[in-house]
């Protein structure tokens, strides 16, 4: 199939073009356009109102409110007509008989709740609803506990790993044979445990590496741990 654009008067599409031309006769009902402009204006106003709502909820304004530094804004004098309109909502009222039966309905509802107490979770949720400050404090406390627990577990795991890698080193007290490897352990002075009594240290400490006349140190392999570096040498 060819991918090049077709010529406008390609005769293969004459029938199709004639069919598509019929769509020019499609028109909406006459009354559709009557309210089009007013609907457009209404949507414009809603769009502007939504933009104002976004401005009202931006994080910088909320931060200022939280810090107690709200912006200086015009007062009642800037909205006289709107205030008069909103005051009309005071005339909204339920049927008069509604408030006559209010107390009776309240008593019935309290009696019903007393007979069927709420579940534990419903009571717990209600208690937190009445005290939103408690919710915030619980959230902070839970977060701190979880963080501390995570740090403690991580530290314990690291200690466990460090201890298990290297056991007490046995020392080759006999002169080293040139055929047998000698395990030389370099101990990190910062982590070397304090000795309460003088103990012959089982570890042969050597500076690493240091050349000695007639002796060549060849490292066979190196083991690294957080505190000890063990290397096998032949000499």
């Amino acid at each position, binding site marked *: 199939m060819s991918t090049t654009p077709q010529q406008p008067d390609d005769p293969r599409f004459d029938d199709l073009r004639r069919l598509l031309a019929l769509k020019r006769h499609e028109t909406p009902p006459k009354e559709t356009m009557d309210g089009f402009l007013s609907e457009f204006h209404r949507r414009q106003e*809603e769009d502007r109102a939504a933009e104002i709502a976004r401005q009202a909820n931006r994080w910088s304004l909320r931060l200022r*409110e939280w810090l107690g530094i709200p912006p200086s804004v015009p007062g009642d004098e800037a909205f006289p007509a709107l205030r008069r309109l909103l*005051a009309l909502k005071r005339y909204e009222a339920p049927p008069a008989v509604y408030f006559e039966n209010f107390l009776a309905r309240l008593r019935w*509802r309290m009696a019903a709740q007393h007979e069927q107490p709420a579940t534990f979770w419903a009571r717990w949720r209600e208690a937190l609803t*009445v005290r939103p400050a408690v919710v915030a404090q619980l959230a902070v406390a839970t977060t701190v506990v979880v963080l501390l627990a995570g740090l403690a577990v991580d530290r314990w795991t690291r200690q466990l790993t460090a201890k298990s890698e290297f056991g007490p080193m046995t020392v080759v007290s006999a002169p080293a044979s040139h055929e047998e490897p000698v395990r030389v352990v370099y101990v990190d002075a910062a982590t070397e445990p304090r000795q309460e009594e003088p103990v012959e240290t089982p570890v042969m400490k050597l500076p690493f590496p240091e050349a000695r006349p007639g002796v060549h140190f060849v490292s066979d392999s190196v083991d690294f741990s957080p505190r000890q570096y063990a290397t096998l040498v032949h000499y």
Partner: protein
Amino acid sequence: MARARANDPAAFDALVERYKQRIYSTCYHMTSNHEDANDLAQETFIRAFKYLDRFKGDSSFYTWIYRIAVNTTLNFLARRRRTANQMSLDDADANIQNDPAFIAATRQDGPTGQVNANELMDALNVAVQKLSPPHRLVVTLYDVQGFSHAEIARIMNCSEGTVRSRLFYARLQLQQLLKPFLAEKA
């Protein structure tokens, strides 16, 4: 109040009678739904009765019960997460016909032509419901119910500056949404 805390049912009933209309009005203007407002008003008084021993007296009982009503309503709206566009109170009070603001907004030669009270209240409620709950609350308490900035700040547990700021932005939004009914602009 003291007798109510001593479990005197008649004393609590007196408190209910005194505040039921205002509590209901607040719940209704926040939800624009009579059934929801009824439920919320009843729940407010039930919780007030249950937690009466927690009322320390550092604020007025009026402020305290309003705070319960506001928190109950805001939590309800957060759980519901939809706007109720229907106005379930079919008729506004007949006295609205004599209100100058109603007359000015609905006169035949006005911006929208002649509209009846229900249409105007519907438009008002739709616009108010488009506000976020905190902004809707400050408009309800200040412009509809006539609380002062200080009282609203105590009820909402925020500063007066925050109340003024929220009121300003709420009014800006409402001014856009109710432009056809407003003769003047800010």
